């Protein structure tokens, strides 16, 4: 997580804590033609090969629409540097395309995702970064504003490996409580090169006995930038301090009509996971 993110969040909290009020309003919003959205997460978990690789294709829809339409009937495959192809097949008009035969991968290798949908061809290239670090988890209890919270931290040492661009390494962490929904954050190793990086799960709802599950990924700079922009689109309600938002561009190109690139991203990562069960703790 960046310093900026922290600082702005803090500002907003201070500034509006007791003064502001929020209310849900009705508003007329513009609409636009549906676009293809790609969520292609080729996450290698070398400890657990049982999970199939899943690519999710959907369409953009009106902002207030309750359902997000899937993109059905696409032809999807992955191609490696040796021109080997690995087809994905759709599960019952769900927009989920799966395969059990993902290509073997080595550090720095590039793969290409191909999609043919609605008579248009899409392509995305991405590089794989190996995650050569071990995870440890720790728990603490703190209080903010007279409420106490359990904090669970994931700690991992910044990669010592040098890639083509040795200056930065980028990480994504996902956090989940009791099989609920995931939240995610990205951070890079700036100011902490080679040191231990941490990411914290903190929630008012967390109780003793809850399981907090973490996934850690090493990601490309492109994907880091992508997720960073996605985060600021989602956290857009910053009052006067909000940062201008615009369409977040990913890495899926439209080869038929270059003016109509797909949204979303094709990522290749190594995933490491760990879980923690919250245990009772002495009050400070």
């Amino acid at each position, binding site marked *: 997580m960046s310093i900026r993110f922290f600082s702005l969040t803090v500002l907003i909290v201070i500034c509006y804590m007791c003064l502001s*009020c929020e209310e849900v309003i009705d508003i007329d919003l*513009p609409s636009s033609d549906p676009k293809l959205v790609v*969520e292609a997460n080729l996450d290698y978990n070398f400890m657990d090969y049982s999970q199939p690789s899943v690519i999710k294709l959907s369409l953009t*829809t009106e902002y207030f629409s309750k359902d997000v339409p899937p993109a059905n009937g696409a032809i999807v495959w992955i191609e490696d540097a040796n021109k080997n192809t690995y087809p994905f097949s759709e599960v019952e008009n769900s927009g989920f395309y799966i395969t059990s035969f993902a290509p073997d991968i080595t550090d720095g290798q590039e793969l290409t995702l191909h999609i043919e949908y609605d008579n248009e061809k899409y392509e995305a290239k991405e590089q794989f970064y190996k995650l050569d670090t071990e995870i440890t988890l720790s728990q603490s209890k703190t209080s903010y504003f007279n409420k106490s919270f359990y904090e669970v931290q994931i700690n991992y040492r910044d990669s010592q490996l040098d890639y083509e661009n040795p200056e930065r390494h980028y990480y994504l962490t996902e956090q989940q409580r009791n099989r609920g929904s995931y939240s995610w954050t990205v951070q890079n190793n700036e100011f902490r090169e080679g040191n231990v990086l941490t990411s914290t799960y903190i929630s008012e709802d967390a109780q003793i006995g809850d399981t907090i599950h973490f996934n850690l990924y090493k990601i490309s700079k*492109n994907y880091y930038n992508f997720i960073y922009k996605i985060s600021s689109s989602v956290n857009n309600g*910053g009052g006067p301090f909000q940062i201008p938002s615009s369409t977040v561009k990913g890495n899926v190109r439209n080869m038929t009509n270059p003016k109509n690139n797909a949204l*979303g991203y094709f990522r290749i990562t190594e995933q490491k996971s760990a879980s923690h069960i919250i245990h009772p703790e002495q009050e400070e």
Partner: protein
Amino acid sequence: MINKPCKHPLFLLLFLYFSQSFSQNHFTIKGTVRDQNESLPGAIISLKENANSFLSDENGRFEITLEEGLYTLQINFLGYKEHVEHIALHENKTLDIRLDRDSALLNELIITQNSKTLDIKKPEMSINSLKAEDIQKMPVILGESDLVKALVQLPGVTNAGEGASGFNVRGGTAGQNLILLDKASVFSSSHLFGFFSIFNTDAIHDIKLYKGGVPARYGGRASSVLTVNQKSGDFSQFQGTGGIGVISSRLTLHGPIAREKVSFIVSGRSSYAHLFLKLQDNKNAAYFYDLNTKISYHFDARNKLFLSGYFGRDLFSFQNALNNKFGNTLINLSWEHQFSSSLYATATVNFSDYIYNLTLDFVKFNWHSSIKNYNISYDLSHQINDNWSLKYGTQNVLNHFFPGEISPSEESSSIKHRVFERKQAWENSVYLEAEHRLTADLTFNYGLRFTNFRRFGNETINLYANDLPITYDPSLEIYSEAAITDTYTYAKNKTISNYHNWDPRITAAFQLSDTESVKAGYTSMTQYLHLLSNTAAPTPLDIWTPSGPYIKPERVHQWALGYFKNLKQGVYTLETEIYYKKGNNHIDYIDGAELVGNEHIERVILNGSSRAYGLEFLFRKNSGKLTGMLSYTLSRSEQRTPGRDTTEIGINNGEWYRTPHDKLHDLAVTISYTLSDKWNFNGSFTLQSGRPATYPDSQYEYLGTRIPNFGLRNHYSLPAFHHLDFSCSYTPKPNSTKKWKSEWVFGVYNVYNRKNAASISFKENDDHYNEAVKMSIFGIVPSITYNFQF
């Protein structure tokens, strides 16, 4: 660096052949209007014989040329006794007029009041001046009178909304305002993220805002100039004023150190420590304080020395998890010297410092950044003859940028200590400004300012392939930070970048009749220091950076035309202006730009252009029991950042888009009614277009989250912004002869509790559906303040 003053510098000769004089039986009366302590700008000098009137200038000086004869001058200034001067004019005369306080009039905490009658003859336009008293009269949030909130009532001045720092003048950004507190430049004008300005109105003598028509003696910023002058202490008697309010309290003490020679003023203000916070939790604090001081030393009639200072800080601390401190420090030393009745000089040395410190315990780091400047200037004001006066001088500013230092806040922290590369630059200017009366009806103010900006080492500059710090991927249409290919270290004092610019300025006033005039002007302004801000409103974290190899100076040109009229001997005044501005090298940011903690800021910046145009209308009633003002602005402020070449998409597809502070309509009405000696009522109403917003035109799902897909930038507007405010002041014993005088001020902000939208955000609720959420900051806010004077 200081020029020796000389009465006839060579370069003046160039201009002299323009000059002409009137027929020989005309003589000139020159004078200065002042009270015990300081000069009185805006005093009315009325000439009984021909019912003409004049105003004293910002130094309290005036000049009248008349035929030989007998005249009676009446000098008036509110709060002072009228002064009458009989003159037999058969030679040039110099007057030193001292006005005495009229204690009967001084029944409120009014110290001075400017006459608002327009000086229609003066080639000065796009300028608004306010006295501390004007500001104190406006009803404001939380009972604290505030300079910036008063400014935004004026036409052409806006801000990004409630709770937004800074202010915007004629479409310019907040970082383009040159703010001078007693000649020292102020980097941040807000306390508490814009809820208050850093200026304590008790310590302010007068302010002047140049929205355009900026004289050549000011430079360094591209949009406007705000001069704020602190009060001098009383030279004869020890006095105090103060106030106790719901948010803050203040106390001002002033008086003589040596009678009629040396005076001091100390003015302090502090908010309460748990502002906005729950009281039971004493680990938290959020407050600000500031201190204004000034020592005035009148050596003799010809020499005056002023030493003034400002120190202000905002402090926030939460549970020891966060400590945040920021603020300005200013010190100014000015020496005013009168060489002769026609030549005045001011030598100034000042220092300005803005710091920002942050400790975040949960990330275990300390952050510290600052910007400092040192300024030496020498300004001369020179009356050549009846139709000619000149101002010339030099200003030399040394800027030190300390972009940041990050360090671990405790031993267990994994943060590595790092100090960002310091930057430094000289900004040296000379200027010459002439006020020139060509005919009895036509007067010009023209001038030229030359600035040299030199950024110098010791500094290491990054090098990039093709000198481009930003790369562009044409297939994905994404801008991203380029890799640093190499670095180059400039040795100490070695020039890194050198820029120089000539900024011409001209304003003409043509008098149509005794009561009306048209004025036109052109201003060119260059800015070498850039305030990096990617949020809709500036935050205290915003960072200043100098022009250099990758960031070019920003240049703005402005044209303005106006019509001015005094009605009923100045009881009513009307000012209308239209303007057009265009600028280049306007900074814009690539999507996802991180500005804070970014050492290589050039890797997120693109250069664009800006434009703004508008119509301003200001109608005032200046005297009587009922006074007031109606101001309306119709304006547009836009920016555009096209691609660097035709293959690039630019920002917002290279189209013009509205700046975050663009407001098409802006109407403000302020009324003040004096019912009796005891009761005074004020009301104000504001109606504005909502500020620009970006709305999503669709949504999609990614990583299990609903993502709003935003359309064209700033293409939509928030709902209209309006509120009505009231305040009244009650003076229990207006005719009391005791030294202790007091008043109560009761105020209500936003009387009908309008929930104005500060922002509309788009987010997924707990049921995983999208919704639009309006955030509003102030509903109805009542306040009460007790003011006293002794």
